[in-house]
């Protein structure tokens, strides 16, 4: 029994030194391709306001923002010199604001292309055309691509847009599927050039392919997960990749119950920890891995029957540090990916920056 207010608070520690090291590792690995650091969803919940300026100071030039509203906000964090990229656009977005904030626009549909070209703005809008190479999400299908790039070339000649890049997005279903996608991408680039476009930046790969398959890097790679130290589920571990998880969920033991066999940690499923992981994961209590028996709405019930635990001891629920599972290790136990474990984490838990 204890007064919770006297204990250290539940917090998400964001290790900036680990982030710096991850950036260095990622950039060294993908050179000479450039890194686009992806910061959608508030830098995967790590806090874009802190990480974006940090990355810019480390020499990162491109920041991937997903949506225009995010890009406009990130402009203030990144400064005028950075190149910002938004690629989930709709015709009724405030494209004029995007042009005013000098955002590079990823365009994967003809109606968006027309809206971008028509949006008020003096300088031509910088556009990256998105081909669908099999993922069947955003992007223009291959049979519609020649007409799409023809129209883009017309709009470029009219001074409304400048096509600076071509991108696509791969499935990572298998190497063979990805090779097929890459062939389609190369064809799309050839067709764009035949239409008179001169894209300088070709980009296809995200974290995993950028690391494992050099031929997928082209001029730039779009990387979120690895910058945050989130390894692929079922793939090589963080250490093999030379990465460290940046975010660790830390909480105190607030109670020890059932004759000392159960430690209570006040963070639970309503804070985003998936209840389906109960019985499958461990947490680190003062450096010792201990099984999580239950994930209640407001607390973890941890089996501490093998070693005595005291109220006030520090628990790493996931992240880095001795005895702690990574977010990816949690994810693997419930057939998902580390990103989902991190992204579900309650935004009301304060992010505390260390390192």
């Amino acid at each position, binding site marked *: 029994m204890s007064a*919770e207010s006297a204990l250290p608070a539940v917090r998400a520690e964001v290790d900036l030194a680990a982030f710096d090291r991850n950036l260095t590792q990622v950039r060294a690995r993908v050179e000479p391709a450039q890194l686009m650091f992806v910061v959608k969803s508030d830098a995967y919940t790590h806090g874009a306001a802190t990480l974006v300026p940090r990355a810019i100071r480390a020499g990162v030039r491109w920041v991937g923002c997903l949506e225009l509203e995010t890009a406009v906000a990130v402009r203030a964090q990144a400064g005028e010199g950075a190149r910002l990229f938004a690629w989930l656009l709709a*015709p009724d977005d405030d494209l004029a604001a995007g042009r005013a904030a000098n955002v590079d626009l990823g365009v994967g549909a003809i*109606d968006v292309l027309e809206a971008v070209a028509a949006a008020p703005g003096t300088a031509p809008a910088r556009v990256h055309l998105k081909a669908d190479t099999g993922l069947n*999400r955003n992007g223009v299908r291959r049979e519609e691509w020649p007409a799409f790039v023809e129209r883009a070339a017309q709009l470029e000649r009219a001074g409304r847009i400048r096509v600076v890049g071509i991108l696509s997005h791969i499935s990572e279903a298998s190497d063979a599927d990805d090779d097929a996608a890459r062939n389609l991408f190369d064809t799309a680039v050839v067709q764009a050039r035949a239409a008179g476009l001169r894209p300088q930046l070709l980009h296809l790969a995200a974290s995993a392919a950028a690391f494992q398959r050099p031929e997928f890097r082209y001029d730039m790679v779009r990387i979120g997960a690895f910058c945050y130290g989130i390894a692929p589920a079922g793939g090589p571990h963080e250490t093999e990749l030379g990465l460290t998880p940046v975010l660790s969920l830390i909480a105190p033991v607030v109670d020890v119950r059932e004759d000392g066999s159960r430690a209570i940690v006040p963070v639970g499923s*309503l804070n*985003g920890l998936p209840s389906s992981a109960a019985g499958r994961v461990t947490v680190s209590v003062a450096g010792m891995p201990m099984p999580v028996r239950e994930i209640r709405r407001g607390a973890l019930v941890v089996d501490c029957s093998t070693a005595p635990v005291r109220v006030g001891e520090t628990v790493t629920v996931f992240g880095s540090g001795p005895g702690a599972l990574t977010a990816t290790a949690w994810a693997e136990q*419930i057939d998902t990916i580390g990103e989902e474990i991190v992204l579900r984490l309650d935004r009301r838990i304060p992010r505390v920056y260390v390192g």
Partner: protein
Amino acid sequence: MTARSRVVTVDLPGIRRNAQRYRDGGHPLIARLDHDACGLGLERVGAALRGHADWLAVDDLRSAGALRSAGVTEPILALSSAGADAAPAGVHIAVSSIADARAAAHAGAAGVHIVVDCGGAWRGAGASEAALLAEHTPIAVSGLMGVYGPETSPEQAAAVFGGIEPWIQLRHVHGTRGASQAGPGETVRVGRGLFGIPGDPGDAEQGGESVLRLTGTIVLVKRILAGEGVSYGYIHRAERDSRIALVTGGYADGVCRALGSAAWALVAGQARPIVGRIAMDVLVVDVGSAPASPGDEVVLLGDPDRGEPGLAEWAGASGLSAVELVAGIGPRVIREYQE
């Protein structure tokens, strides 16, 4: 995408009707609004319940202050004394120990509710500790709060609770799951029952009328040919030529990955399958011949009684509880309120 491309609409009159059901049954109501009212918005939901609940329960003193700022005048039970140094007027604090009670007295709380573990709870004093606490607390005891774990039945919990400090008048042990077993005039402490969130299959009480609706927006519509894959890992391949819509709403928004190729959406009134992996920001719906254009709203989660996908289905497909699915609706999703 515009900010309104992902919206959860909260039906405040529906929450009031759910609250009224308990009061109509003769039960004074403590409305549980912890965890930001399950992510639906503490201040707005709290203000909507003015005059419709006897008490409001919140996480801590900071949340209690937010409710007071929102104009709530009902007594408030803070489940911990964290979050602020001083308790606003009329705020009571739940305590499990003498140390908790001292902290509550120090914060200037109006009183304390002693928390007792009635079986398998992760917090609360045992029966003998509760008696000691009641005797030695430096602050007025204003209530007794029983808690119990999922393996303990409401009947078992009630039996334990009934024997503890019977002189304390305001007593509450049952939440949504046990409310139907509460005796005449007995106070209930209800959270998910206010929000229409179903419990586990087999629970007697299934959570009231649905009050939330989660929508995404179509980004683009295009054709897909038989045999083509969709999204990461190509876990879906089209059986026949069709049309697909890319829709805002991904696992960052609480549409969990486990729902990929396992749930459906309502597109122009038609139930259409979500196909392929859910991505962080988007999902894909096979819209077939349903009318669908960029900018159209798609219902991802709503009221099964109106033909919308329901929380029980999401829970079944994801292995998560309905209440954590609601709490997991992400911060990018705009909260809108039907007054």
